[in-house]
């Protein structure tokens, strides 16, 4: 295909494409079309690079690039492996989709400060790919922080009191977790091992076997809760607050980039720093599994009580993220595969759901589920996609979510954790309970008293509906052809 030297540069380009677009976007603020062109160009370049790398990785290669050696034993370096590729593929692809949608949303609502919005959007994508391609903890930490900071203006976009409160909470949790827990853990790991590079496989980890078990446990939980973007309770509180952001932000960042980065970092550390063997020795897997199980069930129950659509989706996200960590924490190969594949499956389904929420808001200015009775009949595409994505969330075949549930159940059986199986079943029921009524209500319910849906309300603009349909379709495709992603995931566990 390409020469090997190309693959040395490709990760750098993939990370930096959106970074390079930042000044261009900022400078063409007065010409929206040109600005949007830069966004698309960067997205295209980024996806092309990731796609090219995907083939290379699939052929069994791992690309390592050292960018800067900051300390004698410490560098900022990129590494492209199969695990990172899963996330990179998903986020770079969805950026293009989301960019399309965003433009429609922002223009339709005539939002202010669109240039700033697009700049931060690009920055956060750079950070997300950077996290995916990090070769060591330090690089990952840097990109993680960059993501937190660059999404702050997005969350605070409305610049009102509500936005300020949400954004404050957002930054407090994220920075508190990363600076207060992850950073010291990272430095202590560095002090113990002399390196922060990730291990080559998921079994051994980098922590020496003779390290005191108390210290390891402390470090492990510092990382688990420190990457607060993963939404494990009690570090989840930022997520509902951050839903004050415009919907595309919620969609991309809080269904894909931000939360997935949190989960991705957690798994990266669990598998490549601590390693399965060490976690197994200290029984960390089981403990983690029950911690996240609590999150799964509790978040689902809270989701039931929410009437605001975005809030309900937010709690659903919290619950679904914990599936991913649950899978890995079970430490059985099938479960790990199920967990990792859920990164992709959940991303496509959840972004569909958020896009739908945004489309509904743009078309009707409605945020609450109780007001959406009968809307399905005037917005059939939107609600159709919504229904498909909900099925994926619930785990109904043939939509993508089913694959996850299947692997997770198999893994739980392998690991002999019957309690976890019960949790999975319970949460599935809860998923049904909070998703099914929305669709039902929309298609078969009645509009609220005093409102007649007629000519006043119609579908959102095409530029928004298309991404919705695309994302929903891919959810279905991933259900039929899980191998698209599974081939990478299998490489992780093999």
């Amino acid at each position, binding site marked *: 295909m390409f020469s090997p030297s190309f693959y040395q540069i490709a990760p750098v380009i993939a990370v930096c494409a959106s970074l390079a677009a930042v000044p261009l976007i900022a400078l063409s603020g007065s010409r929206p079309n040109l600005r949007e062109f830069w966004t698309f160009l960067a997205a295209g370049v980024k996806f092309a690079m990731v796609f090219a790398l995907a083939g290379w990785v699939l052929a069994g290669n791992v690309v390592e690039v050292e960018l800067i050696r900051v300390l004698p034993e410490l560098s900022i370096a990129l590494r492209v492996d199969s695990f990172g590729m899963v996330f990179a593929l998903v986020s770079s692809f969805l950026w293009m989709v989301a960019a399309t949608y965003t433009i429609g949303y922002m223009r339709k609502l005539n939002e202010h400060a669109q240039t700033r919005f697009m700049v931060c959007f690009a920055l956060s994508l750079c950070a997300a790919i950077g996290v995916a391609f990090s070769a060591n903890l330090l690089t990952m930490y840097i990109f993680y922080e960059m993501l937190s900071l660059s999404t702050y203006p997005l969350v605070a976009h409305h610049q009102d009191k509500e936005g300020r409160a949400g954004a404050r909470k957002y930054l407090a949790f994220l*920075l508190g977790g990363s600076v207060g827990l992850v950073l010291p853990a990272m430095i202590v790991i560095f002090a113990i091992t002399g390196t922060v590079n990730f291990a080559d496989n998921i079994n051994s980890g980098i922590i020496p076997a003779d390290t005191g078990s108390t210290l390891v446990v402390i470090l492990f939980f510092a990382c688990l809760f420190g990457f607060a973007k993963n939404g494990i309770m009690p570090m989840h509180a930022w997520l509902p607050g951050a839903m004050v952001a415009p919907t595309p932000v919620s969609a991309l960042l809080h269904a894909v980039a931000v939360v997935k980065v949190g989960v991705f970092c957690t798994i990266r550390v669990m598998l490549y720093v601590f390693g399965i063997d060490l976690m197994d020795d200290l029984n960390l897997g089981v403990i983690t599994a029950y911690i996240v199980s609590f999150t799964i069930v509790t978040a689902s129950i809270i989701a039931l009580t929410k009437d605001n659509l975005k809030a309900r989706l937010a709690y659903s996200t919290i619950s679904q993220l914990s599936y991913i960590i649950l899978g890995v924490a079970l430490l059985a190969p099938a479960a790990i595969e199920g967990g990792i594949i859920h990164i992709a499956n959940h991303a496509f389904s959840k972004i569909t759901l958020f896009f739908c929420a945004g489309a509904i808001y743009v078309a009707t200015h409605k945020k609450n589920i109780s007001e959406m009775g009968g809307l399905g009949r005037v917005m059939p595409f939107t609600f159709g996609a919504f229904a498909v994505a909900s099925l994926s969330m619930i785990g109904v075949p043939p939509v993508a979510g089913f694959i996850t549930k299947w692997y997770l159940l198999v893994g739980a059986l392998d690991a002999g954790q019957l309690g976890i199986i019960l949790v999975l079943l319970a949460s599935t029921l809860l998923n049904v309970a909070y998703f099914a009524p929305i669709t039902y209500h929309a298609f078969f319910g009645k509009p609220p008293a005093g409102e007649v849906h007629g000519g006043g309300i119609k579908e959102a603009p095409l530029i928004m509906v298309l991404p919705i349909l695309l994302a929903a379709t891919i959810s279905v495709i991933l259900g039929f052809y899980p191998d698209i992603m599974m081939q990478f995931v299998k490489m992780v566990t093999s």
Partner: protein
Amino acid sequence: MIDQAPVFIVIIPLLAALLLVFATPLGPRFAYGMLVTALAATLAAALATLNLVVAANQAVHYRMGDWLPPHGIELVIDHLSGVVLVLVAGCALLTAIYSLRTAEQDNPDRLNQYYSLFALLVTGLLGMVASGDLFNLYVLLEISALSSYGLLARGGGQAYYATFKYLIVGTIGACFYLLGVGYIYIMTGSLNMADLAVILSRPELQESVSVKIGFTLIILGIWIKMALFPLHAWLPNAYSKAGTTTACLVAPLMTKVSVYIMLRMMFTVFSADYIFNQIAWSELVIYLASAAAVVGMLAALAQRDLRKMLTYIIVAEIGYMTGGAWLANAAGFTGTTYHILADGLMTLCLFMAVGAIIYRTGETTKAAMVGIFQKMPITAVVLVIGAASIIGVPPTCGFFSKWYLIQGAAQAGAWVFVAALLIASLVAAVIFFRLLEVAFFGDLDAAPAAPEDGHGQGHGPAVARAEAPLSMLIPMMISAAGLIVLGIYTREVVSYFISWSIPAGF
């Protein structure tokens, strides 16, 4: 000629200071040009000296008046002092460039005399760093102290009382130092640092109570000078009441040079072995340093005045550096020395940015921050970079100094210090976050008081662009870029300069 470079570091600013008095009739612009040129030449001399040191891979000695030490006075410049000299000269140059508008604003008359004081302060600081003689150090310490009293008192109004307190406390500090040197002199008969290091390693002096008293007095004196908690009370008032240029010059450099002097005393005159085995206060000092970091940051959090807030941050940063020096391991020492550079630069960056904001808006509280991103975008970005460095966001240099400090603390098992560093970082994050929030959202809490202009949903106040003048922007941007460059080249800085200075026994 190139081997004369060390002396030029000191005499160029000195001669400039003296000639500036003669140049009064030539007008303010000439004085400005003269100061900037002189400091640029000083920086060049400092770089040349550093180059000499690196090329020779050993300390450069310069004998004043061709007298052999220990009878004569010598300048000794090793890797560490070479880097600190470059830092001091560089910061002074940036401040000098920056001062074009503010110095004239603060000193409509007597600009030349003000600049003369400015140059003398720089002379004193550079001389302290370069000196290899304890008493010479005292003289230069007093030069820098006296000129800083003069500069700070220029603030007028409440600055006089603040400066007076600083003068009293500073004199106590300097006199403690002098008395400590007296003790050392009585017990050894020498004043030359290298000579003393040899004499003090004798077993009978290692045990001597008088030498311990001497060391205690010297260190106490330096701690007073560098405002280590709980001896810090003089600093915030003195620095925050000063004029903008003065604050930009004094705040980043005075305390940092004092930290450097502390390192010099601890590891050059005395030895790591003496400090950590004979004196053995490490634990106490680390507790003090941790308290300094946390208390300083919390006090900064409580301030409304922007500059006062920054001065409390200095108090906290002093805690970082002191703690690192007393961790008794290589990582801690590296962290401290690297943080001298990093903190000098980031304090300068923040003071310049805040100074520019105050210059443009006339406000000194956080109300000055409203709409700053629209009004002064470049200044705002500089402020953000400086803040990121204080908080410790990679890849700014503040992150890497903290990295070393935490690594050192973890190796030494000083978990209190680790916790203090993290808490201080988080508090720093809150401090700057509040400022930037005001900048981003406008003053939402104040909005109800004036509802008529709060139409819409407070979508950021529409403000006209009023960027700081170019003479302020350029040094600000250089310092902000410096923060990132220093961060990226951490490895080079550490391996080329700092690692050479790590004391034996670590």
